[in-house]
């Protein structure tokens, strides 16, 4: 089984979100970049398939050279090799179209990704990729087992879970549950040393096509200060929730 894991290079959750150039560009000044947390859950599941079912694991990112440390981290966690498509990601469709080429050229039968990236939160690439490839697709996956070419999955639904069955080839967008938080791996020194020698192939993009573009960013209006209510004055709280906030 050949697995491709899509890795987004995203600002750490605790980053300050600011914009430059008239609010048209994300300000990367002082921002620490990490493997997108949703992708990390899927990568960890891929490592399990590698160790227990003999799969090979390739990681891929569509981005410029600045994303390479993030790919190296995925290699240090245990992926066999990495591919970087040398292109600034514009939108979900343009990224999906680049990944189509990577999947076809590499002959992957399972593509794992995260449910969404924590920067643009679009949640588009896995579904678009599956459609473009005519692969099966499961979104929001919280559990996954493979036997031969048949796959059993669990996905989250409103208020519960749904069990699904399908076959490879398949694209899966994972989230917490596909592995647990405690299963996530911190690269050790040996992994980091080995990652330096693993192949990281840079490929040039195919003609890029995007259908959307971001014109500008804005931030939510600053929050007013909290209204504190005395713990002995619950009547006042109920009054505020009812008459002022109008939520009860």
């Amino acid at each position, binding site marked *: 089984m050949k697995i491709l894991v899509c890795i987004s290079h995203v600002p750490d*959750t*605790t980053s300050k*979100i600011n914009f430059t150039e008239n609010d048209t560009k994300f300000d990367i000044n002082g921002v620490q970049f990490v493997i997108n*947390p949703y992708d990390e859950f899927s990568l960890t599941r891929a490592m399990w398939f590698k160790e227990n079912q003999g799969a090979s694991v390739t990681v891929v990112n569509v981005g410029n050279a600045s994303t390479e440390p993030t790919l190296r981290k995925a290699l240090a966690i245990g992926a066999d090799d990495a591919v970087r498509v040398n292109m600034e990601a514009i939108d*979900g469709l343009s990224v999906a179209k680049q990944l189509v080429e990577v999947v076809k050229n590499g002959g992957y039968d399972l593509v794992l990704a995260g449910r969404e990236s*924590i*920067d*643009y*939160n*679009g*949640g*588009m690439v*896995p*579904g*678009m990729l599956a*459609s473009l490839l*005519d692969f*099966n*697709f499961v979104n*929001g996956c*919280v559990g996954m087992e493979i036997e031969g070419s048949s796959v*059993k999955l669990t996905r989250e*639904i*409103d*208020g*519960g*879970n*749904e069990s*699904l*069955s*399908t076959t490879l080839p398949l694209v899966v967008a994972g*989230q*917490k549950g596909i592995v*647990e*938080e405690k299963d996530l791996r911190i690269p050790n020194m040996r992994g980091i040393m080995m990652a330096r020698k693993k192949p990281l192939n840079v490929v040039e993009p195919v003609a890029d096509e*995007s*259908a*959307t*573009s*971001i014109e*500008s*960013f*804005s*931030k*939510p209006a600053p*929050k*007013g200060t*909290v*209204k*504190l*209510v005395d*713990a002995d004055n*619950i*009547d006042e*709280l109920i009054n505020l*929730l*009812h008459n002022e*906030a109008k*939520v*009860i």
Partner: protein
Amino acid sequence: MSVLVFADSAEGKFKKSAFEVVSYGKKVAEQLGSNLVVLTINASKNEDLYVYGAEKVISVSNDAVQTFNAKAYASIIKQVADAQGSSVVILDSSIDGLFVAPMVAVALNAGYASNVVALPSATSPFTVKRKAFSSKAFSNTVISSDKKVIGVSKNAYGIHENAVSGTIETFDAVISEADLRIKSEKNEKFSGKVTIADADIVVSAGRGLKGPENWGMIEELADVLGAATACSKPVSDLGWRPHGEHVGQTGKPVASNLYIAIGISGAIQHLAGINASKVKLVINTDPEAPFFKAADYGIVGDAFEVVPKLIEKLKAFKQA
């Protein structure tokens, strides 16, 4: 040319988001000087959509999709969009909506914007405001393709009445074997409970509750308010509550009208998941808890004293 809205239902009954996307679609159709067409799949009371402006409902009944099937739904939406000459397709951005929409976009060769929080600010170029950076910012996104798919973020636009006298047409969609390659084996729902996705009010508790045996009062408070229960990440990691209740960055997103956080300090990862809630009430013993900075209302106090009092007073309020 038309605007096509997919109004989602489960077991025949419309989801709340269906009324919101129809309300939204009605306005977009007005902005574009176009007609609104609403698609439903195996829904039982299509006429319920008239009140939100659905002048034309296309009803698909098909036993092959008695339960949700993303690929088959995407195929049906594409067929109806083609038949109706739709230039804009609107869905919700729920778990299921986000599953279907990317496939619809590829099928229609359309640009897709998910998590849209407002009506288009312009129609030429077609510009929508979307959530980004886990609700810490918004992006103004231009969709440049001829056809467009929009996923409306829950509770961002709201449900607006706009009554019309509508018509219902049936449509025979073709569902192929290839559309059904993902088979649903079992559907496990926590029955009889309000889901976090549907709830107007969410009552959430954290490690401040000290142990799973103390959740009785959280459930009682949720019952009184008709609310869903949720929890912080450490609580689900400790196994005090099921994973499905975990809200925050890596858990479920919350976009309720009122979010009540009890004994949750308000780590940035938690706030990222609940930011989209309109009003936040925080109950915490620690006046320095970061959550108070993100809250609208706060009580500095012990949950074990405040929550029972709140339940008692709310019961009296509800009866009044």
